[in-house]
């Protein structure tokens, strides 16, 4: 049974493009042009994954509200924000609401498809883990205090779970692939799976990741800047 994806986007052209691209990947797609339409659609059946634009018509925060609504109904529902609003504040709000990932426009449909499948897989993995009752540690990798589960998109530091967005997770995964080696900005840019990335974007993401670790462990200092080149993971 193909997974069902819901797309909420007020721009007809973009909506149709998303729909066509995602349908081609073998998903069932239901596309909505407004918050109202979306809500009535969700009343019938909840999709497996939702792609939300934040501004819908006149409603500036419609995407956030929809996200809140959906997560209230199904807390584990993967939500991807897709928007031109890439200001820091929007990212924070979106992620705090429990969104899984956040993609700035213009997007690469290729990357979008990859993310969708990745998120669905991860969600499934988590579901199976919790259903099976056993820790799916087979896919997990341990680097010092860091535990990284690529399958379930789970990260923990000193056995404390850390919530990272999809982008952040992929960046961290790239960073720790060979601990102690500097990873260039370019590599990290690829990891974001966004079409338009600057050093600044990387820096912002890295800072956010660092902060999330420091919240758990104030002594955290494993992410080092390699000025003029990129970042480096240092295990103690």
């Amino acid at each position, binding site marked *: 049974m193909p997974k069902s994806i819901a797309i909420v986007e007020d721009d007809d052209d*973009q909506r149709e493009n998303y729909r066509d691209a995602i349908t081609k990947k073998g998903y069932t797609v239901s596309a909505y042009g407004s918050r109202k339409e979306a809500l009535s659609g969700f009343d019938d059946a909840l999709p497996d994954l939702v792609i939300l634009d934040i501004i819908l018509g006149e409603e500036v925060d419609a995407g956030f509200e929809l996200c809140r609504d959906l997560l209230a109904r199904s807390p584990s529902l993967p939500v991807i924000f897709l928007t031109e609003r890439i200001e820091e504040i929007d990212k924070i709000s979106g992620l705090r609401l429990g969104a899984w990932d956040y993609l700035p*426009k213009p997007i690469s449909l290729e990357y979008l498809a990859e993310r969708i499948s990745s998120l669905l897989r991860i969600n499934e993995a988590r579901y199976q883990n919790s259903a099976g009752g056993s820790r799916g540690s087979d896919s997990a990798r341990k680097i010092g205090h860091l535990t990284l589960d690529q399958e379930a998109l789970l990260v923990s530091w000193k056995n404390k779970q850390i919530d990272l967005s999809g982008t952040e997770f992929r960046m961290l995964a790239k960073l720790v692939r060979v601990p102690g080696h500097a990873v260039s900005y370019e590599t990290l840019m690829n990891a974001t799976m966004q079409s*338009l990335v600057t050093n600044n974007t990387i820096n912002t993401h890295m800072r956010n990741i660092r902060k999330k670790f420091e919240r758990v462990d104030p002594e955290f200092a494993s992410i080092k*800047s390699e000025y003029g080149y990129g970042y480096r993971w240092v295990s103690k």
Partner: protein
Amino acid sequence: MTKANGRGPRLSTKLMLLGLALLIVPWFSFRHLVQMESFLIQGQSQAQLLTAEGISTLLNGREDLFNDLPLSLDGFEALYAHPLPGPIRIDARESDWAALADRWQVFGGGSEPRRITSHDSSIDALPDGAFHLLLGERGNQLYAFLRVRDESRVWRNPNLLRLDNADHIRLSYLTDQGDEGRLQITMQGPGVTTAYHMDAEWKFAEHGLPENRVQGYVEETDYGYNLEFRMPMSMLGSRRSFGLAVVDVDDPETRQIRGIAQTLPQSGRENFHLVVLRSPEVLNIVRGLGYSGARILVIDSQRRVRAEAGSSIEPSESTSDTPGWLERLFDMFRPNVRTSSDLAPEDTEQGLITVGGQVIDAALQGQPSAVRRRRDEGVEVIMAAHPIVSRNQVIGTVVVEQNTDDILDLQRDALGRIVLVSATSLLAVFVALLAFSVRLAWRIRRVGSETTNAIDRHGRLKTSELRHEIHSGDEIGDLARSVSSMLTKLHQHTQFLESMPRTLRHEINNPLNAVSTSLQNLEQEMPAMEANKYLESAKRGVLRIGVIVQNLADAANLEDALESEELEVVDLHELLKSYVGNCHNAHPDCQFVFRSSPGPAPARVADYRIEQLLDKLIDNAVDFHWPGSPIRIHLDVVRDHIEITVANRGPPLQPEIENNLFDSMVSQRVATRDNRLHFGLGLYVVRVIAERHGGSARAANLTDGSGVAITVALPLASMAPRLRATG
């Protein structure tokens, strides 16, 4: 900007200078006062003239009052009959004459009659037979008092018929008819005297009857005797020629005349003195008219004072020897008052008047006039003279003299008040003006500085409205309001401009995304089109638009984004070393030289913002360096700040661009040689980041002109215990 060098005085100075114009007020008051003085003086002159005219009217046609004197005094010497203030008792006592105590005349002591002053020689010092004489007139009677020096008094023996064989007095006069009259006053001892008309020889009485109209009284004294007598004026007639002789007889046996002392000159060709009388009728008329501070003189056509009443000189209590500053100030501006003594009315004791003066001259020629003059004592008087006319002839003049103290006092008072009031009001106005101007200047300065501060060094609006003065009702309030509304509009405009890149990105990103996704779908649906060059160029175009919009938005958001950065102490030395070490990766064709002063260079920064700053500096240097020349990066700790200099050899800065090199959208690039995007945002980002960290950025040509050095200064931080080591 707030300095006004060479642009004229400040507002407050101007107001103060304008305030000085108020000094005109006391000046005008003073001018007014001076005019008022002359007006008052004129008024008083007029009043005096009127008084003189009134008096002269009384005297007009009364030439009889003046005719009792010969028209000419030549050849005559005068005896003065002074008006007597009180009644005289014929008792040979001087007490009645006290008022005239300084008017004694001496005869027989020398050839000329003399007046006795109080310190003159006493009667005792005179030779035998000399005498003191005092004449007075009252009630149409001529009174005489004689002090006669006589060592041996010989009284008349009534048994002897001859009258010249004892001490006696001879009186000679001319009657109206021109006949010579001779009277002898005989004394039979102390007591009442008897007078007889005498024969030409002065030996026997003309007839046996005594002249009862002549009453006398004699009394013995230490020095001789005193004689007092009176005779009616009518006996003297209108000519009033009068002579008096004291005949001295010393030997009671032989009874020979030893000497005659007389008022007549010894060798006189005239037998008589003129008895000059103040015309009593005129005096009576005038006396009633006298008033305080005024002196009235009646002068006949021969310039003789015929009557005098009152005194113009009254001691003024305000007159001090040294005039006060006020008077001095006042005198400075007063029209000069003549001080020439063209008339000295004090010289009237002699009765024969030598007073000159234009006033009297004019009056005697029929012209009433008034003059103001100052006496030597500093008393200022006004003299007014009016002619007395009879049958078209000027027969005399009335002079009214009054001093001007009252007016001057009035004037001084007024001047004092004006000075006081002007000074006070001037001071008050000055203080008010000063306060006002200071406040005004302060308000304007406040609006000015607030307006100035509304825009920072780089022309960015910092506030959207003024806080001060916008509720004031006056012009400054209007100004503040208009500036404020201008700022508000400017602020809105600036906000619009600032939000422009964001809005633009927002608006562009959606269609861009539509194009981008459409292209992707197109590629998917038509595999044949893969690697089609049109598709590729469309994709590149989309990417470039995306980058442009992204860069613009980043730059526009930079300052806001920087505000939320968290700063930490980082060793810039380590950071720079690591950074320059990695530069080769980004720019493999370039050679980088790093030099730094030893030791850590801690600064409170957001490390990746510094990295961004360095990116821009290096990009800039790489873009402009001559190929093959090294790019030098220096780190210096200078006192309290750290200086990062990136220098490259290449074209020097153009002077016109040097000042705004760090502003956005300013670029020195002549033509884009490559496909990269240049918005002149690089150095703008450098400046904004440097300033966010409390530092600054500057650019300069190398001293030899071979290139450009851009220096960023950041404040040095104290080494924090937890310095994040750099990897």
